[in-house]
């Protein structure tokens, strides 16, 4: 995914953080803890870049984005084994060689918590 696609989601991250900070009566947001799955295609540096720009003059100005990346995991539809799907190759179970399966991790995209003062 091209980097420009991080802009609208970064706007949403900022809105979520500001809403929770205001509700708690916080004076400043020091950090925002994000959970991002590898299958979302979002790039950490890009989010930080847009965040630094969008947050200027807000409660979150200067806040650090702490991003927890979640690796992709697939559960085999045949034998039930869990495996990490390979990049740019057909998803094949390493145990029974069945094709594909259900994505059980890697699509996460949420604000876990914020650190405020």
């Amino acid at each position: 995914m091209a980097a420009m696609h991080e802009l609208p989601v970064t706007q949403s991250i900022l809105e979520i953080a500001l809403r929770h900070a205001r509700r708690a009566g916080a004076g400043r947001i020091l950090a925002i803890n994000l959970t991002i799955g590898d299958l979302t295609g979002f790039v950490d540096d890009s989010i930080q870049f847009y965040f630094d720009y969008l947050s200027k003059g807000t409660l979150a100005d200067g806040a650090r984005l702490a991003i927890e990346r979640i690796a992709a995991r697939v559960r085999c539809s045949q034998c039930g084994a869990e495996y990490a799907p390979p990049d740019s190759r057909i998803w094949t179970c390493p145990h029974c060689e069945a094709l594909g399966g259900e994505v059980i991790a890697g699509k996460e995209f949420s604000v876990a918590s914020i650190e405020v003062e």
Partner: protein
Amino acid sequence: MELPVLEQILSANDQIALDNRELLRSRGVVAVNVMASPGAGKTSLILRTIAALQGRQRVGVIEGDLAGRVDADKVAKTGTPVVQINTGGGCHLDAPQVRWALEQLPLDRIDLLLIENVGNLVCPAGFALGEQAKVVVASVPEGHDKPVKYPGIFVVADGLVLNKVDLAPYIDFDAVAFRTAVRALNAGAPLFEVSCKTGEGIAAWAAWLEALRPPDI
């Protein structure tokens, strides 16, 4: 002090897509987002679909292209309501653009809305429009390795079309490899192998579209 938030990040696009979905539901319209690379035959498939569903479903069309209204003019000739969106440089349709188009269309006289996305196998996969179903159109001349190279769009598809099967005798297209790669990424979506040139396979594809129902919620 750490405050728990645990909130899904929805972009502004996703929020408008939810509004579009609600508008479509309230008018009883089934919307299908048709995605493919340039030249796969999206417009040809739409024209074939309009003909196949004549008298059974009232079809409407949204055409997404960087520029021009070549595709919209082709659709308009069939008497089908159509709106052209020009994205400028944009590589995909987004929910606000579709919102604008929905406001131009006679939704009360449409059962099935076909939204032709910008030709691109990457970006359209990440942008919800408010559609009921996402369809990916691949074609024989593009080669059988497209699912392996662009897995993201095949993963999210609710329906898959392989177009230009009439060209198979002339092209080194490994149909077994294609089907295998598609199934590895997406076991559930039906695959329709069609030719918009000869009409082969169009009836089954049209019947699948006709059976789609608007969402309950």
